[in-house]
């Protein structure tokens, strides 16, 4: 999440009206783990947000994976699948 926010802020500093999906803490508990049910709800919120941005014609930037992480985020996979299903182009940008 930190890399996404950093990249969006960098784009904003260049005059790009960059937005990023906020996985706000209010949607997640700090004193227990997110449950499988909450994961599904969170993914649905992420997908709705992405679809709204696609419908609004936003340019989508892809910062790729963090190669030092052995596990892949289900959210990143969801976003890539959504974009592929809709045939929406992305712009690759370095982290």
């Amino acid at each position: 999440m930190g890399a996404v926010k950093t990249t969006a802020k960098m784009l904003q500093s260049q005059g790009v009206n960059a937005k990023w999906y906020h996985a706000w803490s209010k949607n997640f508990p700090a004193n227990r783990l997110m449950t499988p049910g909450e994961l599904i709800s969170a993914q649905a919120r992420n997908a709705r947000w992405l679809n709204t941005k696609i419908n609004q014609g936003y340019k989508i930037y892809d910062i790729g994976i963090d190669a030092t992480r052995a596990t892949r985020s289900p959210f990143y996979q969801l976003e890539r699948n959504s974009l592929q299903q809709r045939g929406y182009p992305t712009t690759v940008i370095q982290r």
Partner: protein
Amino acid sequence: MKGKNFDLIAKEQFIFLISEYNFVLLKSEKEDWGYELVYLNKTTGIKITYEYREAYVFIMLYQLDKGELRENQGSINDNTVLYGYGFDDLINLRNPQALVKPAYEYGERSIYYDKESGLLEYVSAFSNNLKKYAKDILKGDFTVFPDLDKVVKERVKKYNY
């Protein structure tokens, strides 16, 4: 009864870094996406990141450069010098069966979803693994890093598109 927040639990569970390996807690911050803690001793940096939505604890192990923690550059190729590696890759090299998965993969009936102690149990699993599988790195022996370097660079090639 409510459980403790992640940062309090992490400070308790990773206290061995301070008491046994002379680390200091350099940073402990709550972000809108989770928490980040950074520990340093004379040779090694440890970054512990908890992202709510990943339901996972990411641990990075760094070889300090002149006493300072240097982040890896974002774009990695075969020639990139890396200073830090994911603890998961170390576990995968040493005992893949010990790898802790994202919490939701264990299901809501697992001990990790106990209302009072679930998060503590989960963080404890990571701290126990760090104690067991990263002793050399915590003491400043980075001879395993070239092996981790190969893993990361192979992953870059696999996911490059």
